C-alpha cells in the first residue's frame, strides 16, 4: 500500500496513488485549516514576482569576493545571491535539501548554481538516488573543458562520462615554510623534501627550540596530508559501488610509524588545530597544508598572524615510499542544478565563474585556479603576500599536478570520520599512537561505505566484514 524508497534504485519521487488516497483526508483537513486562517502573515520568501526570474546562486562566505567582482563586471545581472555554508564538512545541506525537494518538488527559489566546498559532493548529488546535477558537457564548449588542469575534472565526471561540475580551484598541499625562522634554526640547510626530513627537523626543534612547529595533528583534516599524501589506500573506489580499504598497506603504516617514532606529536607537531583559538602562526617553521593556508591560516598581515612577505611555499614532500604525490584539502566545485528553469544561462554562469580571469584572480583565499589560462593573473595578484613569489608559484603548480588520484571522491566525509575516530587520541596529552588509529579509522570508513550502499574490499577481515 505504501511505496518504499529505501532501495537505492527506487524512483526518487516516492508519492504514489496509494499514499495520495491515504492522505487525501489529511490534505483536506490541513488545507481547510490553512485556508481558514489566511489572515495570518504570508510566507517569508513569497515576495513579489519579478519580471524575469533571477538566477539563484548559492555561494559560501569565501566566495563573496567573487560575487563583488561579478557584479562589478556585470552590474545589471539579474542574480539572487544566497550565502550558505558551502555544504561544509558534515553538514550536508545540499544533500538534505535535494532529498527533500525530490520528494516535494523543486521550488522556484531552489538554487540554479551552487558553489560547493566538498569535493565528494558532485558524485553523490549527480548520481542515483540523487541524480540532480546538469550534465555540463552539452553546454560548456569542449575547448573550455580541455583547458582545465589535467585530472582536475575527475571528481566532476560520472562513471557514464557526464561532466557534472566545474572545478574552481586546486587545494593541493604544499610545504609552507617561514624562511626567516628556518634559517635561524637550521642555517643554510636545504628545506626538507621528504616526510622523513620534516619529522627529523621536528625532532631537532623539540629539544633545541620547543614551541616551534613543523606541522599539526590537531584537526580533522590531518589525514588529508599524512595518509592521502602518502598514497595510503583507505579510500579507493575500485569499481562501481566498490571501495578498497587496506590499513595494513606499508604506505599507511610507514608514515604512521615514522610519526610515532619521531615523538613530534604534541611538540613540534601541534595538537592545536591550525583553525583553533590558540594557534599561533608565528611559531610555524614549516607545515604541510593546502595552498590557501598561505593566506587563511597564516593570516598574512592580520592581527595575530605573520606579516605579509613572510611565508614561502615549497613543493610538497615526497611520500614515504618515494613517490612524488600530495594530498588536498578544500577547493571548490561549481554545480548546476538539473532542475533549473534556464539550464543554458545557469551553465554559462558557472562557466564564467570558473574560468573568467576577472573572477579567478580575486580568489586570494581560494586555491590555484584549475582553469589553466587563469593561473598567471591569479599568481600575480599574490606577489606582495609571499616572501618569494616565484618559488611559491612554482611549488603551487607542482603540487596541483601531484595530487594522488587514489583517494577517491566518495559520498561521505573522510575528514569527519577521522575527526570522530582518531582526533581525541591524537590531541590527548600525552598523545596516543598514530599507527594505532589506522585500523579503527579504516573500520569506520568501511561502515560509512556500507551505510551508503558500497561493497567493501579489504584484506583485513574486521574491515571487510564489519565488526
Amino acid at each position, binding site marked *: 500500500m505504501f511505496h*518504499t524508497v529505501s532501495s537505492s534504485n527506487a524512483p526518487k519521487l516516492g508519492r504514489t496513488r496509494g499514499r495520495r488516497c491515504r492522505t487525501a483526508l489529511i490534505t483536506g483537513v490541513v488545507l481547510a485549516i490553512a485556508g481558514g486562517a489566511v489572515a495570518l502573515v504570508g510566507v517569508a520568501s513569497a515576495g513579489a514576482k519579478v519580471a524575469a526570474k533571477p538566477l539563484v546562486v548559492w555561494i559560501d562566505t569565501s566566495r563573496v569576493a567573487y560575487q563583488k567582482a561579478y557584479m562589478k563586471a556585470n552590474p545589471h545581472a539579474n542574480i539572487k545571491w544566497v550565502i550558505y555554508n558551502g555544504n561544509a564538512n558534515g553538514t550536508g545541506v545540499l544533500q538534505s535539501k535535494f532529498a527533500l525537494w525530490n520528494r516535494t518538488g523543486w521550488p522556484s527559489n531552489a538554487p540554479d548554481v551552487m558553489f560547493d566546498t566538498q569535493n565528494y559532493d558532485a558524485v553523490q548529488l549527480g548520481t542515483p538516488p540523487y541524480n540532480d546535477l546538469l550534465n555540463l558537457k552539452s553546454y560548456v564548449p569542449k575547448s573550455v573543458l580541455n583547458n582545465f588542469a589535467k585530472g582536475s575534472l575527475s571528481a566532476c565526471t560520472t562513471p557514464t562520462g557526464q561532466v557534472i561540475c566545474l572545478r574552481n580551484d586546486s587545494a593541493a598541499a604544499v610545504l609552507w615554510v617561514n624562511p626567516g625562522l628556518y634559517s635561524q634554526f637550521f642555517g643554510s640547510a636545504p628545506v626538507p623534501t621528504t616526510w622523513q626530513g620534516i619529522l627529523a627537523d621536528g625532532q631537532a626543534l623539540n629539544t633545541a627550540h620547543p614551541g616551534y612547529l613543523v606541522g599539526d595533528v590537531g584537526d580533522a583534516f590531518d589525514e588529508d596530508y599524512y595518509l592521502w599524501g602518502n598514497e595510503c589506500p583507505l579510500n579507493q573506489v575500485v569499481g562501481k559501488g566498490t571501495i578498497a580499504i587496506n590499513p595494513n598497506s606499508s604506505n599507511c603504516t610507514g608514515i604512521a610509524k615514522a610519526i610515532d617514532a619521531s615523538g613530534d606529536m604534541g611538540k613540534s607537531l601541534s595538537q592545536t588545530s591550525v583553525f*583553533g583559538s590558540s594557534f599561533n602562526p608565528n611559531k610555524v617553521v614549516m607545515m604541510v597544508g593546502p595552498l590557501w593556508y598561505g593566506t587563511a591560516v597564516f593570516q598574512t598581515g592580520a592581527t595575530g598572524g605573520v606579516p605579509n612577505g613572510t611565508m614561502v611555499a615549497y613543493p610538497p614532500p615526497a611520500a614515504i615510499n618515494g613517490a612524488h604525490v600530495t594530498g588536498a584539502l578544500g577547493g571548490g566545485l561549481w554545480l548546476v542544478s538539473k532542475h533549473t528553469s534556464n539550464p543554458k544561462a545557469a551553465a554559462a554562469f558557472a562557466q564564467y565563474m570558473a574560468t573568467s580571469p576577472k573572477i579567478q584572480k580575486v580568489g586570494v583565499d581560494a586555491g590555484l585556479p584549475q582553469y589553466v589560462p587563469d593561473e598567471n593573473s591569479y599568481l600575480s595578484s599574490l606577489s606582495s603576500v609571499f616572501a618569494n613569489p616565484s618559488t611559491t608559484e612554482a611549488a603551487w603548480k607542482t603540487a596541483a599536478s601531484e595530487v594522488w588520484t587514489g583517494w577517491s571522491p566518495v559520498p561521505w566525509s573522510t575528514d569527519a570520520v577521522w575527526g570522530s575516530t582518531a582526533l581525541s587520541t591524537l590531541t590527548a596529552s600525552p598523545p596516543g599512537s598514530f599507527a594505532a588509529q589506522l585500523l579503527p579509522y579504516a573500520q569506520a570508513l568501511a561502515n560509512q561505505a556500507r551505510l551508503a550502499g558500497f561493497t567493501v574490499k579489504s584484506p583485513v577481515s574486521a574491515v571487510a566484514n564489519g565488526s
Partner: protein
Amino acid sequence: MTVPSATVVPDERASARWGRRAGGQPAGGSRTAGYFFVAFYVVLLLALGIAPTVYAFALALSTPGGLGFAHFINTFNFFDFAPAFEHILEFEGIWLVSQTILVVILALMVHTLVRRVSSAFRFVFYLPGAMAGAASVVVWLFMFDPHTSPWAFVLHGFHYRLLANTVAPGNLPVIFAIMAFFTGAGGWIVIMYGALNNIPRELIEAAEIDGSNAFQTALRIKLPLIRKWIVYMLVLSFAAGSQLFVEPQILGVATVGEISPQWSPNQLAYYLAFQLDRFNDAAAISVDLLVIGLLVAVLLVWRGRLFEVD
C-alpha cells in the same frame, strides 16, 4: 456516556490559586456544544498527532513485498544503531541521576532561606531556561573551549587544553548532561520549591518541636511529600532526553565532525532520510523512538496516577 464513578478532587492549593473548585461532575449543555468547543483541537489532534504517527508506522512497515519488519531489521543491523541508543542511555543515566539529586538538594536548600534571598536564587537558576536549544549550544561551545572558557581552570584540571580534548567521544554523554542540566534544572528547582511550599507549615513545625533538625526534616518530612514531583520530573526528562538532536547536531558542525552525525537515534534517522534518501528506514527509527515516548507517557498517565482525569 461514561459517567465518572468518582470525581477526583485536585490539589486543594493549586485550585485555591485559581479560586474555588466547583464540585460535582462536569455537567452542562448539549453534547453538540461539547463537540463544537473541542472541534478545532480534535482536527489538529487528528491531523498533527494521530496522522503522522499512523503515517510513520505505515512507512516503517511497508516493504516492497507488503507489510513487514524489513526496515526495522535493516536499521537494527546498522553499525550505528546500537551505539546511538547506547549513547542516549548513557547520557540519560548521567543526566537523570545527577539532575534528580542536584535539583532536590538545591530546592531543599533554597527552601530553607528567607523569601527574598530564595527568590533571587530561584531566578538565577531558572533564567538559563530561556536559552534552551541552539543558543545554549553556542554558549557551551565557548564554555568547553579552554581558550575562551571562564571554567578554563576546571578544564585544565582534566588536562584539557583544546576544545577537541573536552568534546572527546567518551565525554559527550557528560557534556550533553551538563547542557541539559544548565537549561532545564532551574525550572525544576522552581517547581520543587513550589511543591515544598505546598507542604503545610504545621507539619514541619511539629517535626521541629519533636527535635528534628533541618536535615532530618528535609529527609523525613519534605522529601516523601515531593516524591511525586520527582517522578514527574524523571519521566518527562527521560522522554525528552531520548529525543536528543540539536545539541550533538550543532556541536558536530562546530567541531568539524568530531561528533558523528549519527550520534543519537534522532540524528541517525535524520541522516538516513536526508543524507541517504532512505525515508522508510528513517521512519522505522522514528517509530522506535515514538514507541519509547508512548510507553513512557501511557505508563505515567495510567499507572502513575499523576494527572487529574476527573
